[in-house]
């Protein structure tokens, strides 16, 4: 053994080209930003968009059917990872676009928003491609640290600082939980690699108390990152306290990454423990559906309402995992992508209605929108009906598929619980429609949003309808990614 020559494997850098590119670009953005002034800061913004575009191009080029492992198998590049990364770029690009005019109007158009945002994207990419506990954790922490500081960027606001602190403390506890659980599982299986852990558990059985403890801690960590009840306390506070573009950022793309992380941890590594985590997820899901939908009704602040709505969507998303099969995972993936688009759309509308010195973040601000702008009232209507899951919007197909998945595994009662809570949820979505269409406007000012925001919000809203009429392509894509 001692005489064996030391072989240093050169890591296959081609495998992580998009990540490397994004890292380099982010550093570049960071440096360029130093030389920009308040006026020329648009360069930083454009450069950030170019970074995302470049990463998208590279990811697209290496798109292929084979699964490649690298870095001693702790990094995986498969079609699912690539496609999810693409969606992360797209959603983040939309978020960046929405946030620019908002930040400019509030004198907080700083380069850090974009650099931190890009670091967050890097974290998400690593989460999506992680194939070992260590990699999962690295990606997650990179994302979380970026998020904490993004919230704290608005440093003069007492509420933002408080919320950042809160998020940091709770997030750290959750990360600790996750890490603790991982260490227990590592102790049992002797491996950090997700594939090996899965193989070990399948071969050696799962009848082990420590293993169960480890699983519980991991699931708690995941539930926290998703914002599933009872680990949801941070979500409404963050959504309300963070500046709208930051809340928008947190609400959209990270959910896609969290989906991928959960998929890899539960369905790959912990597949043999399926019966156990299924039970836990059922509880999380039912509680999230109940708490999210019921408490959302009581909210007067639309950002807080959207936070509770997110919680309820997480409940739906988890249904797919509960179904625990290719069908269910594809359903969840479809759901998370659709959700990310709906969520950006809703926040986009808030940004669209806001202007310097005015935040359109209470329900009142949506009153009489139909009188002020028929077009954008209609866009918000589409987004709201999509969130409520009313056909012909795409939200319906997202719900249809997860419901089909749970009915398929003979958990029809769960589907019934879910649809009943979705009726309760429909109330607060149609209340927004009611405010927009049936009430007189309180605020008669014309909408002042920039041209690009108008265009993107319109595309975002129309997508709810178009994807609802032709959901086939995305559905087949999701189904093919989980083979």
């Amino acid at each position: 053994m001692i005489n064996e020559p030391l072989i240093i494997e050169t890591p296959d850098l081609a495998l992580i080209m998009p990540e490397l590119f994004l890292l380099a670009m982010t550093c570049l953005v960071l440096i360029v930003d130093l030389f920009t002034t308040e006026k020329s800061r648009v360069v930083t913004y454009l450069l950030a968009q170019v970074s995302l575009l470049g990463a998208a191009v590279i990811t697209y080029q290496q798109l292929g059917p084979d699964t490649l492992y690298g870095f001693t198998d702790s990094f995986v590049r498969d079609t699912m990872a690539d496609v999810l990364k693409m969606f992360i770029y797209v959603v983040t690009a939309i978020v960046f676009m929405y946030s620019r005019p908002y930040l400019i109007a509030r004198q907080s158009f700083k380069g850090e928003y974009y650099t931190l945002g890009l670091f967050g994207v890097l974290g998400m990419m690593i989460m999506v491609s992680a194939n070992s506990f260590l990699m999962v954790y690295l990606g997650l922490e990179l994302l979380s640290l970026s998020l904490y500081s993004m919230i704290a960027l608005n440093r003069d606001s007492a509420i933002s600082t408080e919320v950042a602190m809160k998020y940091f403390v709770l997030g750290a506890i959750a990360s600790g939980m996750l890490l603790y659980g991982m260490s227990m599982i590592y102790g049992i299986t002797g491996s950090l690699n997700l594939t090996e852990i899965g193989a070990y558990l399948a071969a050696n059985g799962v009848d082990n108390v420590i293993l169960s403890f480890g699983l519980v801690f991991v699931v708690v960590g995941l539930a926290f990152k998703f914002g599933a009840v009872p680990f949801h306390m941070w979500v409404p506070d963050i959504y309300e306290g963070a500046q709208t573009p930051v809340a928008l950022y947190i609400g959209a793309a990270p959910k896609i990454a969290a989906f991928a992380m959960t998929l890899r941890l539960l369905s790959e590594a912990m597949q043999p423990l399926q019966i156990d985590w299924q039970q836990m997820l059922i509880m999380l899901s039912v509680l999230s559906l109940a708490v999210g939908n019921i408490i959302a009704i009581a909210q007067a602040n639309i950002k807080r309402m959207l936070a509770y709505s997110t919680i309820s969507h997480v409940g739906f998303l988890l249904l797919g995992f509960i179904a625990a099969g290719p069908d269910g995972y594809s359903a969840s993936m479809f759901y998370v992508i659709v959700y990310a688009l709906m969520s950006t759309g809703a926040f986009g509308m808030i940004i669209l209605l806001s202007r310097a010195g005015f935040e359109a973040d209470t329900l009142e601000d949506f009153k009489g929108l139909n009188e002020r702008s028929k077009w954008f009232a209609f866009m918000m209507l589409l987004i709201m009906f999509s969130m409520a899951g009313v056909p012909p919007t795409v939200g319906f197909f997202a719900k249809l598929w997860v419901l089909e998945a749970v009915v398929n595994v003979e958990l029809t009662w769960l589907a019934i619980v879910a649809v009943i809570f979705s009726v309760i949820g429909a109330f607060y979505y149609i209340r927004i429609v009611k405010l927009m269409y049936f009430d007189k406007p309180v605020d008669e000012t014309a909408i002042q949003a920039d041209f690009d925001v108008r265009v993107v919000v319109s595309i975002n809203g129309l997508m709810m309808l178009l994807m609802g009429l032709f959901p086939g392509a995305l559905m087949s894509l999701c189904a093919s990614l989980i083979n």
Partner: protein
Amino acid sequence: MLFDLPILSTLILLPILGGVLVLFAGEKLCRPLSLGVAILTFILSIPLYTQFDVTTAAMQFGELYEWIPSFNIFYQLGVDGISMPLIILTTFTTVLVILSAWEVIKKKPQQYMAAFLIMEGIMVGVFCALDAILFYLFWEAMLIPMFLIIGIWGGPRRVYATIKFFLYTFLGSVLMLVALIYMSIQAEGSFSLLGFHTLPLSLNEQIFIFLAFLLAFAVKVPMWPVHTWLPDAHVEAPTGGSVILAAIMLKIGGYGFLRFSLPITPDASNELDWLIILMSLVAIVYIGFVALVQNDMKKLIAYSSIAHMGFATLGFFLVFRIIDNTGSWQEAALGMEGGMVQMISHGFISAAMFLCVGVIYDRMHTRNISDYGGVANTMPIFAAFMVFFSMANAGLPGTSGFVGEFMVILNSFKANFWIAFLAATTLILGAAYTLWMVKRVLFGAVANDQVSQLMDLNAREFVILGILAIAVLFFGLYPAPLTEVMHASVEHLLQHVSLQKY
């Protein structure tokens, strides 16, 4: 050339695209444009009748395209004798609704017209969808325009009424969705409705599915005790909204029973037919009494709609008792056809009644019976129409209202005397509440100054009510065109439900 069009898709898409166009049209142009679209749609729907093959129960004018291949969902359309008359009723009624709104709607007329046209397309879609998910899509999509119609153009309590309407119907339908998903899994992923018809299901499964359907359709019909949204929605809705609600949306519930509950879960329907019969009889008798004490005209007609729809559901579900008593499914055809005729006829009559109320509401801005009196003195032509439609509503022989009721009552004697007896009370109750309203509104001395200044019907209102009067009279005297198209389909359905499915 014209008839090479895929006719059902045209009937769905034309009004929807026309509606979108109307949205962008100017305030002046939107009325003629939407009327043009509605009339064109109606004309295009006539070949459905003229080219309909009455000898077969198979689906006609079929269209089949792949829609969501990964989910086995198809864009599949087709009509039979049950759905075809309802589609023509829809296209017909929409023309009248657009006409009725001509001068009345001043607030955002484009959106109003567009909402009704889009609604028309969606409703046609409901009647001809042969894929469960496509059906569900149309079924739910219907809620969105109606929600806006009641909420934007409705009366003072419109917001309460429309949210109640939305949540009630949404709650009813989500369980149906779960049932549809469940069946598709049993059918190995297929969502085809015709496939569901032959899908073997155990009695237990059937009962759960039946109950899920019952909730969805009973809310829509609406049947007692889930009818409470209807009076609110009707009272607050603008005239056009009430007409569409009463004339077509309620029929969708009845259609659901014929297309889903009976053929998919025949054994559960057999098992639980007492429940539907009971609910129908309560609707006929109890709701009839409730209608009697209403002071709001629209509420009165709303309750009378519930009672009349009770007839339709009674006719559909008498089948099993009749088969038990007579041993032959042919005997039950009369009742089921009676239910169908009742639905179509109620479409005309309730539309006419709501339009009549609309006519005087536009002039007086009140629907309270007590605010009127002696209207016949100032509006004689209107009074003639209203008396005629009220008689039809009460089931006067010679009007279409009589045909359906008579067929159902006649047939129910074969099931059970007491069912027939209770059903027949409607002849008294219906006459009581409608004629008493007529007496209080139209006859007597002129009640107040407002009434004395009323102007009689203008040409537009005369045309609308005249067309409806002709339709009511025609189908009252000669219902054969209606019954002959549905005959084959009804017999096929009866034969199907008389067989055990498991």
